[in-house]
């Protein structure tokens, strides 16, 4: 299947006319037709004729200097606004919403010649870790359709695992790219805060939200990041930091680097099979000359409370524009989970509670930033698990709000600190459910993370495994 190839191979094939973008698009739609009734990863599928029209144009225009993404089919999490295609954020509140403008990330991909296939299912507004908190039906895990795909970006990750497209663009506020990547066996990058423009990404929690790629390999993520990263005059929080040639730096040596293993991330509550698989990443990297070092991040326990005070505070404000006057739907269209987060955030910002909750949480957030700085001064990158358990059965998370929050325990502190993290497939449970590990680095160290990920994927084949549907 063409869609098993990575982006560089596909681009090469397109340029050499070994196959066409039309072939790729047809393959996507054929897979979607076969499997998406089961998986339910799409909210909106671009009409085939439309995608084919764009593919034909891409085939016509391609030349040796075309972007590596030229003619490559991709999908967007449905939180990115797009002209002419509705954007719902998986909520009935926006079920008929058409944006008059394109998200910067989408615009950049269009300019590169990539071809949009559809807009993907997710937890509404990013509120969840299982893609069950959606008004468009839950996303099924392609590895076991009785199980969740993860979230909030379950749709994008499931779509890449099932080869509905070559890559996806997701949004990670507290694990929304990494968690479903781990549970669907794909590679996902949560970028440094400010690395990629958030303009046109419907906000969950503005100071945590990051836009990044989900794909089959680290190298694919590097190629995508080169296209989507950079300063945007429409996003005051986007960074002027130079964008590296990530894909060209992938083979630079990693021997001599030190990978830190923060012990607090491997204690009680972590599934033993996951623990073993994640630690095995360190062992494999050792064979590439990487040193390992156990370190301590004692703030770990404060991660959930800090995140679940500040993120709901911000979301309560971000969602207040959906006040029932505009957008056509009333506020009772919000789901229980979203109402819960709005209520918590409204409470933590209220007079008399602000100091005890929001302000205190912000102070602790500053400590987290310091903790990551300190940890990353003792080593080059950190190795951490992504999820405490393999993908749960449907209902296990959504019906247990506290358990739902705990699913994020390993993936929120990076957003709290703003640092980047690369999610990599690193093994399977006895029941053949995927396991992911994350490599976390300093601010703007995406080049290093992608390099480690790439070289790890050169000596492993977890990322090449596909679900049997």
């Amino acid at each position, binding site marked *: 299947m063409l869609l098993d190839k990575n982006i560089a191979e596909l681009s090469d094939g397109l340029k050499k006319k070994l196959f066409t973008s039309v072939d790729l698009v047809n393959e996507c739609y054929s897979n979607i037709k076969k499997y998406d009734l089961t998986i339910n990863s799409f909210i909106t599928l671009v009409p085939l004729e439309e995608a084919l029209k764009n593919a034909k144009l891409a085939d016509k225009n391609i030349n040796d200097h075309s972007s590596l993404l030229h003619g490559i089919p991709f999908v967007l999490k449905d*939180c*990115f*606004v797009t002209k002419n295609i509705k*954007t719902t*954020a998986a909520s009935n509140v*926006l079920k008929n*919403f058409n*944006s*008059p*403008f394109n*998200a910067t990330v989408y615009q950049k991909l269009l300019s590169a010649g990539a071809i949009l296939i559809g807009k993907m299912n997710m937890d509404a507004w990013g509120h969840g870790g299982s893609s069950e908190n959606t008004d468009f039906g839950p996303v099924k895990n392609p590895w076991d359709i009785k199980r969740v795909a993860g979230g909030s970006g379950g749709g994008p990750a499931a779509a890449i695992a099932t080869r509905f497209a070559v890559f996806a663009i997701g949004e990670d506020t507290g694990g929304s790219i990494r968690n479903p990547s781990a549970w669907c066996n794909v590679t996902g990058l949560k970028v440094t805060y400010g690395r990629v423009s*958030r*303009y*046109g*990404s*419907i*906000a969950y*929690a*503005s*100071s945590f939200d990051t836009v990044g790629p989900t794909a089959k390999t680290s190298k694919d993520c590097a190629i995508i990041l080169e296209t989507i990263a950079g300063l945007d*005059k*429409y*996003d*005051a*929080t986007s960074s002027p930091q130079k964008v590296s040639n990530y894909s060209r730096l992938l083979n630079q040596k990693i021997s001599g680097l030190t990978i830190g293993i923060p012990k607090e991330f491997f204690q009680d509550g972590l599934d033993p099979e996951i623990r073993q698989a994640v630690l095995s990443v360190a062992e494999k990297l050792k064979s590439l000359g990487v040193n390992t070092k156990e370190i301590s991040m004692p703030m770990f326990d404060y991660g959930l409370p800090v995140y679940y005070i500040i993120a709901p*505070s*911000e979301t*309560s*404000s971000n*969602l*207040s*524009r*959906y*006040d029932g*006057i505009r957008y056509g739907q009333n506020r009772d269209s919000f789901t229980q989970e979203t109402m819960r987060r709005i209520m918590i955030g*409204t409470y933590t*910002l*209220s*007079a008399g509670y*602000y100091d005890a909750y*929001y302000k205190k949480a912000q102070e602790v957030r500053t400590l987290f930033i310091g903790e990551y700085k300190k940890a990353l001064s003792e080593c080059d990158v950190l190795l951490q698990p992504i999820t405490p358990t393999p993908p749960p059965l449907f209902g296990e998370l959504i019906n247990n709000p506290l358990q739902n929050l705990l699913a994020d325990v390993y993936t929120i502190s990076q957003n709290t600190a703003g640092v980047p993290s690369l999610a990599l497939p690193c093994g399977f449970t006895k029941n053949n459910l995927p396991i992911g590990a994350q490599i976390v680095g300093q601010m703007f160290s995406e080049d290093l993370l992608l390099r480690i990920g790439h070289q790890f994927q050169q000596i492993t084949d977890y990322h090449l495994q596909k679900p049997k549907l």
Partner: protein
Amino acid sequence: MKISPIIGLEVHVELKTKSKMFCGCDANHFHVEPNTHTCPVCLGLPGALPVPNKTACDWCIKIGLALGCEVNKLTFFERKNYFYPDLAKGFQITQLQKPFSINGKLIIDDQEITINRVHMEEDTGKSVHIDDSTLIDFNRSGVPLVEIVSEPDIHSSAIAKKYLQKLQQIIRYIGVSDADIEKGSLRCEPTINLMIEDNGKTYYTPLAEIKNVASLTGVENAIDFEVNRQTEQFKIDHQQKNSSNKTTRGWDADKNQTFLQREKEENADYRYFPEPDLPPIEYSETEIEAISKSLPELPNRKIVKYKSYGLSDYDSQIIADNSLFATAFERAIGEKNDKEFCKFVANIFIGPILTLLNKSQSEIDLDKIKHEYFYSLFKSVSSSEISNTMAKQVIIESYQIDEDPVYIAAKKGLIQVSDPGKIEMMARQVILDNPKAVNDYKKNPLTLSFLIGQLMKVSLGSANPSLAKETLEKLLGK
């Protein structure tokens, strides 16, 4: 019973920047077709993000500096969350903890009024109520708004009005806003209560904030009304201020009275928190200094300067009132701040020029004000070649047609003859020609006016009248 009003003013000034506060939309919304100056950002659409307008921030600091404030080098924006149909995002971006500047003052009639803060925020959309429906115009949504908050240092409606006029004058001087109350580019919300001293006890009446005051006179009248209302109310219920009885009252200009809008203001919880979409803003010492240097000379300084030129307090104030007018005055006096000359120019500005401008409802045209014209006219008046009355006439013509006023006077034969020799020749002629009048004069000196009239006739009106009188008296023997 002794009653002292306690008044604090919250003033909102709309900046006249080209674009809005957080997007590129045209900030002009006066008489503009509704909802034509909008974009995803000021409509608060999903995914849109604010980007601060640097000029607006600079101008906010400029206002702060003009009011003698300290500038906070590190500031940030915050969200003020509340529900209102014309509030597109469900929150307003404003400043609470770190306004751009704090602790300024304005001196009104030798009384110092402390400015608590000058901060930057965005305006909301505008609700238009037609019959039973409400329409919303978002053209105003996101227009840069500077809020200037005074301490409750004001104790009379007259001082409140003067404070506003002074504020308006300074803002217009620095050119950052039209500060027009009628057009809504300057809005004022007074908060008032009374300190009542009675039988050795002191009472404070409940606070009332007054909204919708749309003119300077309105502010004065609303405060006066409120002072009376609170006095009468206190006599009835003796109610005192507490943390939960502040009210909001509207001003009805037609009925000339305030009316209750909302009670129990303390319950409003705006859930302020730092705006996560905007990084903190830092101004360096150098940047603040550059803004400070860009400030024009402000009216108070000008008044002091004009007084040092020998102008009266009254004249100085009139000239300094309007920045353009003051600039024109300074252009007219040029480098020569000789007191006599300055007074001469001031008289012309306050007299004929101001009259002309008022009549034509226009601003002074700087290009038509030339120092040389004023100076040559001054010299001609000093040497009595041109009378003061003539001077006022020709300078207006000079302003209108851009020609040297002395030349205009000469062309019209308006130059006064003050040469004693020439006057004497004409006087001798008049004495010879009018023997009867000369005889009359010897009997009754009051008849000299006839001879002076004859001399003026002979000179075709150009003789210096006082010199003519003197010369005739001398020749005829007093």
